[in-house]
Structures are given as structure tokens and as C-alpha cells.
């Protein structure tokens, strides 16, 4: 599974770096390093809401506060 996090200006200000850190930690805690690859991308063009995150082509908006729930639902949910 490929997760792409937008690191463009707008998403950067909304906390992409925090989400990168959170996801990295969650990937380790859940021991899914070999199943998930985390990438960065410049502006994806969906800057209006939270930080833009793309999973296998589907776009989501995530905030640092919702990152953990999002990870469990969308990432772990798909892996199971």
C-alpha cells in the first residue's frame, strides 16, 4: 500500500510534518513496515481542507488531531 502525504505550502502549514511523524510511528507500532510505503508529494491540488493524503489513488483530508483514527480506519482497515 502506498500512502502519499502532501508537503506543499498549504498542507505544510496545516501540519503535514506532524502527520508524517505520527504515521511513521503508527507504522512501526503496528509492525506494518513491509506492507506500507510512506511518500511525500508537492501540492496535489486539494488544499481546501486538511492535509491531503492519498491512499492507492483515493484522496482524503487529515488533520494532526484525526491522524491516529484515520490510520486505524483507512490504513489498518484496508490491510486486514
Amino acid at each position, binding site marked *: 500500500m502506498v500512502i502519499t502525504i502532501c508537503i506543499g505550502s498549504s498542507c505544510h502549514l496545516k501540519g503535514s510534518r506532524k502527520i*508524517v511523524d505520527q504515521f511513521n510511528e503508527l507504522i512501526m507500532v503496528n509492525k506494518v513496515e513491509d506492507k506500507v510505503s510512506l511518500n511525500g508529494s*508537492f501540492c496535489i491540488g486539494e488544499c*481546501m481542507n486538511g492535509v491531503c493524503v492519498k491512499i492507492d489513488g483515493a484522496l482524503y483530508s487529515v488533520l494532526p488531531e484525526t491522524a491516529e483514527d484515520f490510520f486505524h480506519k483507512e490504513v489498518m482497515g484496508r490491510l486486514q
Partner: protein
Amino acid sequence: MNIKVEASYKSLNKHHEELCGDKVEILETKDSYIMILADGMGSGVKANILATLTSKILGTMFLNGATLDECVQTIVKTLPVCKERQVAYATFSILQIFHNGEGYLVEFDNPSCIFIRNNKVINLPFERRIIEGKEIKESRFQVRLNDAFILMSDGVIHAGVGKILNFGWLWENVANYAVDVIDKAPTATRLANTISQACDDLYMKNPGDDTTVAVAKILERKVVTLFTGPPLSEMDDTRVMHLLMASPGKKVVCGGTSANIVARYLKKEVRTTLEYIDIDIPPIGYIDGIDLVTEGVRTLSRTLTMLKRYEKEELDQQFFNDLDKKDGGSLVAKLLLEECTDLNLLVGKTINVAHQSPELPFDISIRMNLIEQMKDVMTKLGKKVTLTYF
């Protein structure tokens, strides 16, 4: 020969003095670069006035094509006479380098210019003559790329005298030190800063005399073309890309959407990393064929901060440590400061709608403002800047 001269200097004031008794003038005429270093007798206000008058007179007269003899006559007749010593006196050095590579050096009582070529100190051929009772040394020569010329006031060769060193930092020692550090301090600014730092250390941060190091370095013209911001009309994308790809030097793209335009045109991919070297600056990206790819406004505002620090001469080791960092903003700043003589800015005026959101902590529709400021600072730093909006 298509050369460019980078000139820079650093002064240390004599202990307890607010004004420096050394003065450096850096000028550009239609066909040459001129650097003048004057050292006024004594210290403080008096020395500062003598040095300022001397360097300004020399600069203004040279700029208007006066001969050396006329300049010296004018100085002798103009400088106020010191009450205590009954003389009017300032020593000076003048270095003039013409665009065609001819060099001309004049020295009056300053320590001789250190001339470094291929990591060796070279002795310049001098002729001596007497003008208005003063013995003046003159030298004419041909410069080559990467030649470095170091002018200094006598505070440099007196550094540490009677304290750390019996006889001060002798000319030969300064010259050998300059050769040792020149690879690590490849620009005029870095070299002037490094030598001046060594003087300060020898004086144990307590300079016994005004101390000035002025360096001129012969550089090749180096062009950098920077593209940032999507053009208002998509029709202009191709035009911008032609200009960018046809430019002779390094190519820089700042901005996510801009990077996507470039990648689409070149039929390449934008690769990004998630390595945060600095938490405030988004990571850089990569596109084959482009020398540096970064995010836009955050990165450029960091770059502008660095350029402004450089322009204000707040140059200490901390500045250069920051400049050597690998975040996007510092990388762009280093490129513009140290590997660029001519800068072309290709700037799209499109404002990212998402950046207008009131939730954001500051208005990042400031790209054009950033660019205008960048242009001003780079111009002040002696770089040739062209700016085109789309």
C-alpha cells in the same frame, strides 16, 4: 574574457572605538571594478574622517576617469591636517580590474596586496614613483579566473603583537594562512570573514588597531534561472519552460504547482522525500534535468531571510553554518549567493486559492512581494537580476 569580480570586506574596530579608522569603497564603472581600502591615521573619529575622505575622493575621481596623479594631488590638498602630528595622512590601496582581464594595483604605505593564483602566493611586479612627495607603488598585470586579491590595513599584520605573537602576524604568515584556507573559503566574502576572524582571535577579541581585510575574487559569469509560481494563463506555461530550459546555467524551480508544470513539460516525474531538515521548511524534491526543486513561499521566505542577513553583513560562523544547511531555503540561498552572478527570475502571478484561507497563520499570497524583495537584495549584492512576470 567574460569575468565578474566578487568583492567583499570585513572590518574590526579598535578596542573601545565605535568608528572604524579604515574604509573600503567598492565601485563598478562601465568597464571595470574598483576596490579601495584607506586607513586613516590614528583611530576613532579622526581616522574615520581621513579614511572616508580618502576613499571617497579616490573612488569618485577614478570613476570619472581622473589619473592617479590627479587623485593623489587632490588628497594631499584636501585632507585636514592633524593638530598633534602636523600631517594629513591616510594610507591607501586601489585595485582596479577591467572586464577584459587587465588588472591595475596602486599602493601607498598599506601592507602589500596578497595575490593568490592556483593556491600559491604570487609576487606582483611593482614600479615605484614619487607623486607629491609620496612614494607610490603601481602594478599592472593580467588576471585569470579564480585569482584572489587580498587588501588589508596594518591592523592585520599587527594582530597579536606583544601578546600572542612577538612581532605580530607577519605578512608571510597571513599570506600562507590565506592559501591554507582558500579552498574552504572559496568566495571573497568567506575569505575576508575567515582572515578577519583569525585576526580577532590573535588579538584575543580585543583588537589593538582598526583591522580590515578586503578581498576581490575573479569569477566566471554564472547564470541561475529560477521559476516560481504558475503563469496566469496556461498558454504561457510553454513560454516559461522554453526560457527555463534554454537558459545556460543552473535551473531552480520553487513551488509545488510549478514543479508539476515542469515535470509535465519534461515528461518526467517529481520525486519528493519526507526528510525534514528544518521543521519550518517542507522537504525538497527532484526532477531530472532541474538542479534544484523546492516548495514555494515557505522556502523562498527562508531564502530571503538568509539573503538579507548576508546583505546586512551579519556574517559570522553561525551564518555560514546556517548557509551550509540542506533545507530547501538554505540550498536556494547558497546557490544565489555563491554560485550566481546573473539571476533570471521567471515568476507566475497565479495565487493559490487555498493559501487565502483565514485558517492559515499568515497570508502566503506574498510570492510577488518576496520576489521583489529578493530582486532588490540581489541587486544590492552586485548581481545582475532580470525579472519577468507571466
